[in-house]
């Protein structure tokens, strides 16, 4: 009772404090259209307004709209429109063919597409249903009642438990946490994995238990639903008090509750009106380059069609003669009125006749093939399945499979993509003594290069190994540090690690179960290290840090110590250090500081030169081993100094202008006269197999650019480690850290700075380009590499310099862009995409890679690690960078090859078919008489030749997967687009002309006389059916001839198609109907088969038509072989199974060895650098500010989660 009354007093006090605000807000018209009023916990009052329900629907269609809308979607395709037009034409009398010829295939294609649409929509519907039916507890009467989400209404009071997702946008009322706060994870919204804090209004803290909550009768007046995630304005009217609401009280749908037992809230926006749904925007669908080229081919075919029709029309108008008595031409026949009319009508007649030249089923077949490729092959490839995170590859779109086979430029993010973003505490140096027995891979590489045997030190038994900690030295562990020369300094180091940070502990307060939420993984690693040294940081309140210290006073003693945190001097990129002022329980005041070596060394107290020198040596050593270093220092403060400083600090903190700057200045005052403790070294682990993958990809002719937000040193370091840069390369470094620029920056005039930087960048670019061109002209010039930082890039991307930048970077083998913003990542990507017209691929894992992923032709997200943002924006998601090898070299290359072959085959088979018709037209007086029966023609495409090509599109393999990876150079055929050139089209066209001529001429020439011993003669339909049979056989067998890998499915479908034709012919020719149809083909096949002649032609014609292609293929292979053909020949005796082993043996270097080798090539001057690399927590907001997005800076509110989120792992079976 006492508590609640005091709370009430509080809230009324706060209410009194803001009377003016109440008044101003009172002016808002509650019922104005721009405003919504929600009566909490009162469904009846909300009734008249008719808020939307909470059920969502992401389906495209419903039962009624499906047909019209679905058909409309289909007819947005030009090919379908074309066939619709042709179908309409064929309804008119000028058509030589019955409408069935064109309507049947069209409806078949539409049917298949519609079924696919319906299937996909059904899946979406099921998803929606499962979402709509998940349960949430709402207040009914005086108890919590679970209801499905879809029944949730605006104004309901809901209870959300820990780790649950918010079902709607909810006004936060109360929480089980003290101070009415709760933690929210927004990874689904913005990809940020840090926890955000939301705070309820004090006035509503009480409504937690159902009895109390049922008394809550508030009225929420707020803005109308909108899509701005970061704004919310409104008032809560409770008991005639009007309280202003802010985004802090709004819990958005899509977020989840963390670190809080449960919260109670009132629903404000539901269903499609939630902010998250208002943001719903489908990612722009990408079309593959090959498909765009396919359009060109289709247009060309269309032109060919028009030409053919024109020839026919002219021919007809010349040839047609009224003297042909048997035609019974009369003056009254309007279509034969004069030559112009004849030509005109014949033209359209011929268009309907030759319409089959456009492969109608091409698009739907390709779609089907790609769909199976992505769902069955890419998604289920065990080579791309990451067992540790239980993540298979995921093709989120099936449009771009073949694009993967033509990628020339890869833009890669660094953190989380190339590196694991997994920092492990590896070594440290205390008071001039280096600890840690581990050997980094880089050191191992150096040793190996020098021919030394690396003796892997035995790890002491029971050495602790956990995430973030990979350190072993018996001298420090388990309290052994007490026996070291300077145990006090050790203690200071451990305390510094345990206290000086901004980490939030989460979970149980036991060393095994605790999870540290840190702004950067480095921090988490350091705190973890402290824990393992016996200084276990387990709890933090805004003012206190609790550390469970072991072995401090004597061995084995464990005590909990609470350190009062007085000030936190935050990390930022200019300060490059972070300090904490804390008060020991015994009153000792200490400043702990950690930061970059040069920054710390400047601020050390005098007279510790020895330690300083030794520590610097250690730092250099750590740096050259590829470790990230930090220097640690402390300073004892006396209370007077501190108090006077603290006043200044408070002043600065409350300053309204230039607060940042003032804080920095104040910090300078106290961060001096430090005592050096030592340094730490953290290993930034590369993702598995990255150097190897990069090596393979570059052999495949793919250029890899690294775009990272990291500092230049870190970026270059990683570039070396990844084999991207080596010492043989000529490097062009364009940095904003030059003296000229720094000088200008110190002067501080923004315009002046911009001008200077621009000039500098221009100068550098020009110079580098000249040099690069010089190297390009020499025969054996070195490979080139470009390193540029974000600030310079900003100016280099200026239209005036863009061309220079592009031509320079295209000459370089590798490019590293550091400190770039997400926007710049996208700009660089589209620079290459649009400027150089090359096919680009972006790969990244975080929210800051989204723009880049969307800007590239193909976007790839790394799944299974950070938030889903990158994956959501991507076209493909893979778990590891190294899977790119499989994705590009195997799946991409195959898809490209397959789609090319499928397209070419479609082109060929339709052209062959139509050309026989065309040749026939010449012998019919250009009258447009059809050669084939209607049903033959309509089923040719969709039935007699449809399946083998799909099998080809699924199973075609030139070389096996392991050979594709072993000979990455094969990929270049895709980059050069070797299989989809006009030359290839021409070859296929020639083949089509040849085969159609053979089929047509051979039959017509030889079937002139009697064709059996009883002197009978063939009619038109006998001849055409014979030609058709030959054609079906030749075209189907052609599939086998063009396949590099023939499975039993090939045989089944090819044989099946031919058989299908024969069965169809038997049935179709055997029936008569009572309807008046031209019984042209009645009994034809039986007549044919009763003659020897039939079998003689059936052997001769397909053989002759395929012989041409056979000879061509043989000549091509023998004299102008493709690379893959040579590779096939090299490995012609191997079975697939044995190849996998070969791969291991052939590559002499294991991934680790290759990497260490690369690192061993680090240049001298760089190896001198001490490896300081510590991503500042503020670096997210740095990007945000560059992008113009307002991101609130919060000291304690924002705690970025460590790289690996604590996902519940699926237990391994």
């Amino acid at each position, binding site marked *: 009772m006492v508590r609640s009354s005091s709370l009430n007093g509080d809230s009324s006090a706060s209410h009194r404090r803001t009377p003016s605000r109440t008044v101003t807000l009172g002016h808002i018209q509650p019922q104005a259209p721009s405003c919504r009023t929600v009566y909490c916990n009162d469904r009846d009052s909300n009734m008249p307004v008719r808020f939307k329900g909470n059920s969502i629907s992401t389906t495209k269609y419903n039962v009624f709209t499906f047909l019209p809308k679905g058909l409309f979607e289909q007819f947005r395709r030009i090919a379908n429109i074309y066939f619709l037009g042709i179908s309409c034409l064929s309804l008119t009398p000028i058509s030589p063919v019955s409408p069935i010829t064109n309507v049947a295939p069209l409806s078949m294609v539409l049917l298949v597409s519609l079924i696919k649409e319906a299937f996909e929509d059904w899946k979406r519907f099921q998803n929606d249903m499962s979402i709509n039916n998940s349960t949430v507890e709402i207040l009914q009467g005086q108890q919590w009642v679970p209801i499905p989400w879809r029944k949730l209404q605006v104004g309901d009071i809901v209870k959300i438990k820990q780790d649950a997702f918010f079902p709607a946008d909810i006004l936060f009322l109360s929480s089980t946490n003290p101070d009415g706060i709760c933690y929210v994870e927004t990874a689904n919204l913005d990809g940020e994995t840090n926890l955000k804090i939301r705070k309820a209004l004090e006035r509503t803290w009480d409504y937690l238990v159902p009895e109390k909550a049922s008394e809550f009768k508030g009225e929420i007046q707020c803005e109308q639903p909108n899509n701005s995630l970061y704004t919310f304005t409104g008032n809560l009217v409770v008991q005639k008090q009007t309280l202003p609401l802010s985004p802090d009280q709004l819990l958005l749908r899509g977020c989840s509750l963390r670190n809080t037992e449960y919260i109670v809230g009132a629903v404000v926006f539901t269903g499609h009106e939630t902010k998250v749904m208002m943001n719903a925007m489908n990612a722009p669908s990408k079309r593959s380059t090959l498909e765009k080229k396919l359009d060109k081919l289709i247009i060309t075919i269309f032109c060919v069609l028009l030409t053919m029709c024109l020839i026919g029309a002219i021919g007809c108008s010349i040839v047609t003669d009224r003297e042909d008595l048997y*035609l019974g031409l009369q003056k009254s026949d309007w279509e034969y009125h004069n030559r112009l009319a004849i030509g005109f009508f014949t033209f359209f007649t011929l268009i309907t006749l030759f319409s089959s030249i456009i492969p109608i089923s091409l698009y739907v077949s390709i779609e089907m093939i790609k769909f199976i490729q992505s769902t069955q092959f890419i998604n289920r490839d065990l080579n791309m399945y990451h067992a540790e995170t239980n993540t298979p590859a995921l093709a*989120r779109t099936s449009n771009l499979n073949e694009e993967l086979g033509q990628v020339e430029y890869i833009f890669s993010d660094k953190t989380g993509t190339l590196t694991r973003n997994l920092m492990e505490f590896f070594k440290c140096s205390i008071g001039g003594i280096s600890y840690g027995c581990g050997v980094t891979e880089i050191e191992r590489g150096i040793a190996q290069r020098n021919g030394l045997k690396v003796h892997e030190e035995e790890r002491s038994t029971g050495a602790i190994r956990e995430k973030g900690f990979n350190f072993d030295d018996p001298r420090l562990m388990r309290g052994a540090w007490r026996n070291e020369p300077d145990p006090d300094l050790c203690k200071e180091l451990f305390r510094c690690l345990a206290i000086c940070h901004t980490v939030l502990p989460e979970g149980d307060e036991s060393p095994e179960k605790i999870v540290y939420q840190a702004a950067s993984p480095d921090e988490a690693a350091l705190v973890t290290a402290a824990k393992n040294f016996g200084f276990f940081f387990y709890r933090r309140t805004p003012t206190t840090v609790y550390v469970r210290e072991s072995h401090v006073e004597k061995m084995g003693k464990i005590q909990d110590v609470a350190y009062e945190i007085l000030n936190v001097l935050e990390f930022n990129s200019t300060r490059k250090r972070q300090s904490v002022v804390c008060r020991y329980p015994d009153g000792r005041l200490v400043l702990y500081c950690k930061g970059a070596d040069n920054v710390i060394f400047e601020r050390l107290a005098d007279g510790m030169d020895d330690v300083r020198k030794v520590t610097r040596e250690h730092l250099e050593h750590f740096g050259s081993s590829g470790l990230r270093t930090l220097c640690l220092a402390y300073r004892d403060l006396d209370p007077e100094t501190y108090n006077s400083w603290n006043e200044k600090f408070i002043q600065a903190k409350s300053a309204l202008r230039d607060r940042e700057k003032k804080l920095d200045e104040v910090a300078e005052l106290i961060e001096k006269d430090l005592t050096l403790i030592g340094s730490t070294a953290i290993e930034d682990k590369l993702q598995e197999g990255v150097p190897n993958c990069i090596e393979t990809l570059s052999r495949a002719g793919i250029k890899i650019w690294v775009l990272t937000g990291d500092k230049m040193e870190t970026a270059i370091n990683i570039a070396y480690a990844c084999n991207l840069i080596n010492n043989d390369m000529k490097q062009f470094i364009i940095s904003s850290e030059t003296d000229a620029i720094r000088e200008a920056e110190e002067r501080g005039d923004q315009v002046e700075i911009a001008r200077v930087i621009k000039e500098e960048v221009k100068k550098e670019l020009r110079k580098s380009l000249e040099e690069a061109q010089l190297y390009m002209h020499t025969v054996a010039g070195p490979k080139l590499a470009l390193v540029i930082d974000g600030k310079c890039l900003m100016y280099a991307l200026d239209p005036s310099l863009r061309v220079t930048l592009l031509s320079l970077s295209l000459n370089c083998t590798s490019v590293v862009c550091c400190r770039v913003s997400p926007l710049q990542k996208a700009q660089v990507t589209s620079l290459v995409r649009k400027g150089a017209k090359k096919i680009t691929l972006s790969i990244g894992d975080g929210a800051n890679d989204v723009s880049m992923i969307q800007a590239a032709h193909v976007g790839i997200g790394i799944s299974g690690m950070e938030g889903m943002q990158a994956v959501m924006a991507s076209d493909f998601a893979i778990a590891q960078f190294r899977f790119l090898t499989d994705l590009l070299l195997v799946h991409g290359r195959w898809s490209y090859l397959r789609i090319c072959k499928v397209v070419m085959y479609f082109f060929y088979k339709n052209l062959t078919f139509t050309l026989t018709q065309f040749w026939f037209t010449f012998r*019919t007086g250009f009258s447009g008489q059809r050669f084939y029966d209607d049903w033959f023609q309509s089923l040719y495409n969709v039935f007699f030749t449809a399946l083998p090509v799909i099998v080809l599109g699924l199973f075609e393999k030139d070389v096996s997967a392991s050979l594709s990876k072993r000979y990455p150079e094969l990929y270049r055929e895709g980059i050069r687009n070797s299989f989809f050139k006009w030359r290839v089209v021409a070859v296929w066209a020639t083949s089509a002309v040849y085969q159609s001529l053979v089929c047509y001429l051979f039959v017509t020439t030889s079937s002139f006389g*009697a064709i059996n011993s009883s002197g009978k*003669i063939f009619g038109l339909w006998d001849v055409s059916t014979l030609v058709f049979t030959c054609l079906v056989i030749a075209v189907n067998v052609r599939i086998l001839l063009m396949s590099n890998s023939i499975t039993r499915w090939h045989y089944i479908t090819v044989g099946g198609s031919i058989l299908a034709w024969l069965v169809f012919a038997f049935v179709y020719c055997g029936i008569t109907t009572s309807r008046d149809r031209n019984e042209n083909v009645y009994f034809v096949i039986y007549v044919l088969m009763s003659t020897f002649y039939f079998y003689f032609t059936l052997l001769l014609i397909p*053989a002759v038509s395929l012989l041409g292609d056979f000879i061509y293929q043989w000549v091509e292979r023998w004299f102008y072989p493709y690379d893959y053909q040579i590779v096939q020949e090299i490995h012609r005796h191997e079975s697939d199974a044995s190849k996998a082993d070969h791969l291991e043996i052939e590559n002499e270097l294991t991934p680790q060895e290759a990497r260490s080798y690369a690192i061993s090539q680090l240049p001298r001057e760089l190896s001198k650098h001490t490896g300081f690399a510590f991503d500042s927590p503020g670096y997210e907001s740095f990007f945000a500010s560059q992008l113009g997005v307002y991101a609130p800076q919060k000291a304690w509110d924002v705690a970025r989660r460590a790289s690996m989120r604590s996902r519940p792992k699926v237990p391994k079976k």
Partner: protein
Amino acid sequence: MSSNMASSSAGSGDSSAARKNSKRPKCIDYSSALLSLTLLDSKFTQQELPACKPILTPGWVISTFLIVSVIFIPLGVISLFASQDVVEIVDRYDNDCIPAPARTNKVAFIQGAAPKSCNRTLTVTKRMKQPIYVYYQLENFYQNHRRYVKSRSDSQLRSPKFENQISACKPEDDAGGKPIVPCGLIAWSLFNDTYTLSRNNTPLAVNKKGIAWKSDKEHKFGNKVFPKNFQKGNLTGGATLNPDIPLSEQEDLIVWMRTAALPTFRKLYGKIETDLENGDTIQVTLQNNYNTYSFSGKKKLVLSTTSWLGGKNDFLGIAYLTVGGICFFLALAFTIMYLVKPRRLGDPSYLSWNRNPGGGR
């Protein structure tokens, strides 16, 4: 984007899978993907179906060529022999059967009332065994013209019920309002030259039965359908039909109505069922009625025997022989080439990146 968020929230709704999984239509839900990975780790999804990988090695190429030639050359020889057995006499008469004075205006002659009888003499150069088939051959006659082909009514031909189905037959559909049977341009333009053959002044019987395909006779032309109003339209057509004989017995018509594929075609006229000896002369008295002159079409009379493969048809044999020969030649040429200047199979130096090492840049 948002739909995914929403969906992932549902994913957590059921407690077992709190993992973030995108449930976009095309995405596979991870947990179910895992299931399928374990269940469907098949050779299909791993793309390792057993397959035969044909490579055109010299051995394969040469043997293919050899096999083709080994099969084709005998077949060519066989069919050529069959064709050589056939004796064929062709006589073009369209020009010669116009009396010399009328040749300046053949159309006027053919349309006039002058007697059109004409005598031709054929000499048998090689013994012809019966049956000997008599054909007429027309050239430049577009029986496959679109307008011509469709001008018929199949149902009318089949059954008297459908007598009135004449819509396709224009302009020869009715005569004075009554449907023509058989209607249409094809029937109307029925060939009407007649041939009377005699050897050494003894008439040679020409059997005009059994010249049509059996299926046509039995199914397409009804035995209860009798010609009506035929050749009574405005236009002057070809032959007339005896209205007392059902269509199924009018084999001339049946043969004529199986329209030819090309503008040059033969049609069976009848057969002679006696052997003709070498040196026999055959007198043909023909009635030159059919007007091909207005479109300069040729008319020929053909007497021919047949082999098991049909009539005289050198094309098949020659084609087989040529292809077989070419294949044999190619096999030979390739063998020689391979022996003289071999290319090692799978020579890595042929790989493009080995040919110009700098090309990879």
